[in-house]
């Protein structure tokens, strides 16, 4: 205990025995229970957990902004004062001045009707009594420090005129302008493209050096937390289950939940490619009726009888500052040692080709007003600008790229939600453009879609059984009398109990909803499934089980997948071949081993190096793409990537489309650079290899 008080003496923020309860109509939700931690000056404390773990509630509790239904007990001490006892007037003096916050989704965190410079400077007007003009000038300075280009110009702009990355820089500037003692970052990079995320994380790392604030960094992403924090707290269902030094926790996690989280996510750096993932079974407990004993016991693979009876305290492990709430923390295996045996995945040979896209383009024509008046043909939005690919039976192709690369549009063109403007699309050898109505219907059945967001993809007014039966009725796959049996079979296929057929979507968890989405896709007995980011709305622990399910179903039915994702770790795990898209074109394609190894296309290399690796001992890689993806209405000439390319070869990049270079059989890179120069830029991620940090800027 003496150690804890010692830390408290130097700490900026000290949270002691914090409980938060939300009073709802269905009873009291105990969102946080007995949470204690300290953050010292200049230190970054990372809070990691899945949705529902209560990590954002901690942030709002510190700000004393829980809303009328929130009740707190315990102590939140900042500079000797308990923040939870302050009056609203007193609170205003702390908020923004001493404690500032950066939010997820910067677009919604910024006022759409006020220029960003004014929003940044406002805190100075409030807390330091500066005039509007003085505050604005300081805001421009602050924007310069957060590397917003042309701050004098951009300060006068409105949020919607800035890209997502710039918006988040604005929010960060807004928080830092008063030089706060404590900075709370709540999922600051979630929802941003991986390339943008990397530049924002770089910025945060740089600002940590310049400002001596204590930082509370909240995220669900183990990769992010590993890169930014000195110490970590792992949250589960409202409790802090493990806390300690970042390196130690990643190397030697002492709580089964932390261990499970670390082993469950497919990693872009994993040594073995074909191991089966170990999902965390079960789901979060109901926070209104807490189980007796350890909160994680129902999902724990190491559970013992005592775990169900008594609640383990957050006690010191073999190191005093590393604490874990587990009775058996000293006997847990290390990460990598707990992989179940015999789980290697057998990859099958792909069969005959069932989908051939030949130079498919999807252009959208929206006339602007001027174009309507002058009757000038509008410049089309070239969402997909010439994609050729072949998908074979039983194979998975991963389609990757930043948002705006056209991958979703291409996926939707395959299920014929968009008609290709030019090019041909053949499914099972038939050109889909030349079909009669009934043939068309038949072809549509062959290609099904799994949507990104299961919340909005299921009709909230229909029962699960009805939703799954839709394709059965539509394509008349089974007689009406057999539909209930078939629905039950399909539910079983996706590991849901048959009684789920009578439930409504809102009664299901996110993972269960996505299972229903998968069952619906398989109900049509398709040859091809287009899965558009099917995991991105799900928690890490659920993602693994869905991935395993997709693999099993493919093995069983030989369905071909087109897997659209921005998560390269998942793509590497699931896919056989990878297609890298940028602004509607393919820039690299090949099998997984080829694309994830040298030689790289510069864009692939940038994407890979932007991924935060869940290992604090890996130094961050050096390639950064600045700025947003250019408009597909007016794409850059020549190689479309030349405006952001860190390895631009010369003027030829601006003039001519890059040639296809075959690096190995089946591995094609579209780049002007000779292959051997791409070969040299080895992308290495071993922990022994400490990279010199070097920043590449766009050449424009």
């Amino acid at each position, binding site marked *: 205990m003496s150690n804890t008080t010692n830390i408290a003496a130097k700490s900026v923020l000290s949270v002691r025995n914090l409980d938060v309860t939300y009073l709802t109509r269905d009873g009291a939700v105990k969102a946080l229970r007995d949470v204690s931690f300290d953050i010292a000056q200049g230190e970054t404390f990372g809070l990691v957990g899945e949705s529902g773990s209560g990590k954002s509630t901690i942030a709002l509790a510190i*700000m004393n902004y829980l809303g009328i239904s929130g009740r707190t007990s315990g102590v939140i001490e900042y500079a000797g004062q308990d923040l939870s006892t302050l009056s609203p007037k007193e609170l205003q003096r*702390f908020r*923004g001045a001493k404690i500032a916050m950066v939010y997820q989704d910067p677009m919604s965190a910024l006022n759409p009707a006020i220029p960003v410079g004014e929003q940044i400077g*406002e805190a100075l007007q409030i807390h330091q009594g500066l005039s509007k003009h003085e505050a604005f000038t300081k805001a421009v300075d602050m924007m310069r420090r957060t590397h917003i280009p042309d701050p004098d110009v951009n300060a006068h702009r409105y949020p919607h*005129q800035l890209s997502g990355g710039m918006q988040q820089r604005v929010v960060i500037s807004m928080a830092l302008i008063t030089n706060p003692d404590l900075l709370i970052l709540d999922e600051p990079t979630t929802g941003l493209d991986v390339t943008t995320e990397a530049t924002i994380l770089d910025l945060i790392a740089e600002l940590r050096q310049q400002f001596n604030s204590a930082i509370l960094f909240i995220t669900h992403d183990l990769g992010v937390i590993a890169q930014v924090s000195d110490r970590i707290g792992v949250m589960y269902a409202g409790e802090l289950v493990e806390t300690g030094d970042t390196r130690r926790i990643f190397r030697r996690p002492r709580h089964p939940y932390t261990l499970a989280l670390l082993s469950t996510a497919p990693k872009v750096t994993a040594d073995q490619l074909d191991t089966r993932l170990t999902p965390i079974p079960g789901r979060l407990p109901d926070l209104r009726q807490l189980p007796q004993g350890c909160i994680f016991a129902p999902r724990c693979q190491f559970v013992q009888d005592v775990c169900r009876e008594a609640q383990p305290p957050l006690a010191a492990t073999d190191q005093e500052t590393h604490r874990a709430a587990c009775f058996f923390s000293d006997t847990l295996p290390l990460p990598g040692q707990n992989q179940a045996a015999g789980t290697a995945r057998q990859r099958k040979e792909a069969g005959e080709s069932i989908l051939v896209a030949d130079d498919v383009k999807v252009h959208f024509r929206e006339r602007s007003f001027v174009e309507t008046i002058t009757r000038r043909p509008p410049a089309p939005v070239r969402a997909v600008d010439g994609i050729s690919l072949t998908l074979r039976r039983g194979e998975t192709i991963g389609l990757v790229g930043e948002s705006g690369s056209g991958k979703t549009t291409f996926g939707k063109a395959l299920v014929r939600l968009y008609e290709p403007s030019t090019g041909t699309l053949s499914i099972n050898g038939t050109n889909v453009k030349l079909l009669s109505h009934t043939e068309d219907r038949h072809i549509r059945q062959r290609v099904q879609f799994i949507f990104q967001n299961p919340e909005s993809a299921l009709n909230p007014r229909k029962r699960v059984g009805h939703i799954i039966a839709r394709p059965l009725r539509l394509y008349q796959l089974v007689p009406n009398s057999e539909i209930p049996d078939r629905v039950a079979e399909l539910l079983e296929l996706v590991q849901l109990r048959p009684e789920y057929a009578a439930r409504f979507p809102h009664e299901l968890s996110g993972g269960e909803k996505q299972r229903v989405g998968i069952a619906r896709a398989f109900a049509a007995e398709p040859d091809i499934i287009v899965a558009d980011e099917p995991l991105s709305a799900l928690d890490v622990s659920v993602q693994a089980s869905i991935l395993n399910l997709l693999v099993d179903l493919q093995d069983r039915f030989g369905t071909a997948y087109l897997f659209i994702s921005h998560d390269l770790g998942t793509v590497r795990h699931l896919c056989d071949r990878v297609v890298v898209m940028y602004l509607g074109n393919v820039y690299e394609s090949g099998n997984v081993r080829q694309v994830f190894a040298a030689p790289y296309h510069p864009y692939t290399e940038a994407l890979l190096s932007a991924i935060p690796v869940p290992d604090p001992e890996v130094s961050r890689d050096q390639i950064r793409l600045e700025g947003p993806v250019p408009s597909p209405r007016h794409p850059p000439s020549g190689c479309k990537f030349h405006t952001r390319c860190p390895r631009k070869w010369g003027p030829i990049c601006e003039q001519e489309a890059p040639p296809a270079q075959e690096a190995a059989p089946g591995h094609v890179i579209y780049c002007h650079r000779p292959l051997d120069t791409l070969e040299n830029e080895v992308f290495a991620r071993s922990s022994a290899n400490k990279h010199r940090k070097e920043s590449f800027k766009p050449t424009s």
Partner: protein
Amino acid sequence: MPGFVLKRFGSLVLTLLLLSLIVFAVTQLLPGNVAQMILGPYASEETQAALELQLGLNEPLWKQYLEWIGGFLRGDWGESLRLSQDIQPILLLRLQNSAYLAIASLAGVTVFGIGLGVIAGMRQNKPSDHIISILAFIAISLPAFVTGSLLIILFAGGVWNFLPGSGYMSPSEDIGGWLLRLILPTVTLMLLLLAYVIRMTRSSMIEVLSANYIRTARLKGAPERVVVLRHALRNALLPTVTVIAMNIGWLLGSVVIVEEIFSYPGIGSLILFSVSNRDLPLLQASVMVVGAITGLANLAADIVYVYLNPRIRYQ
């Protein structure tokens, strides 16, 4: 911004052109012969034919239309058949009177509607919110002739008697009397729109106050006054402005009833007069003027909307 205004102005001109065609067509379709109407039932056919020739009624329709619209644009709005006077001065005078009424009630609606709406939205589900909402509902359920009559009974004779219940006095004559006579019709007109505006402002205020950027402002340490006035109001006003603007035309329509109740000499009662007396030139001119004003009011509302909403301003 100028491009946007120009674009909207262009569509306004187009709308008015269409309106003029409709107005012209409708007056052509009305039963009865204009010359006969002027001369009365006992005129001989010769005099009738002579008048038709004089008025150009024998000309082809397109020529008549062009003549009429050309004259209208030049400011020659013709002569009233019944009043035997140039239409323009009468119309402009009546328009001025109605404008006092409309502007006063619009101003009242804006101030009270937005004010009460903001209060109700900020105190959602508290007593003040309930009182405002219930009163607004009562106001919206009563038609103008009921509220008008009620107001007359309450303040102009029946219960208390301190406001004139009807008539008009020009401001140059007696500014106090002018104001007094404006009060009751203005309030009647206001009550019609007030409820809409209050409900709209209330709900958009509630929505905006739960937005993330309001949380940002509060967690910046901004006092509640700044949060509401600077961060919330501007965004919350967008739908309200649309509602007010969309209802300007409707307000002008209600002017007809209100002016009738309070015997107020405005454009509404003039239109009523021209319809019941088949004074076609007067009707045509009045409708065109009202149409133009409605269009201009909507244009003004669009401009305010764009000013409030930078997302439209920079597209």
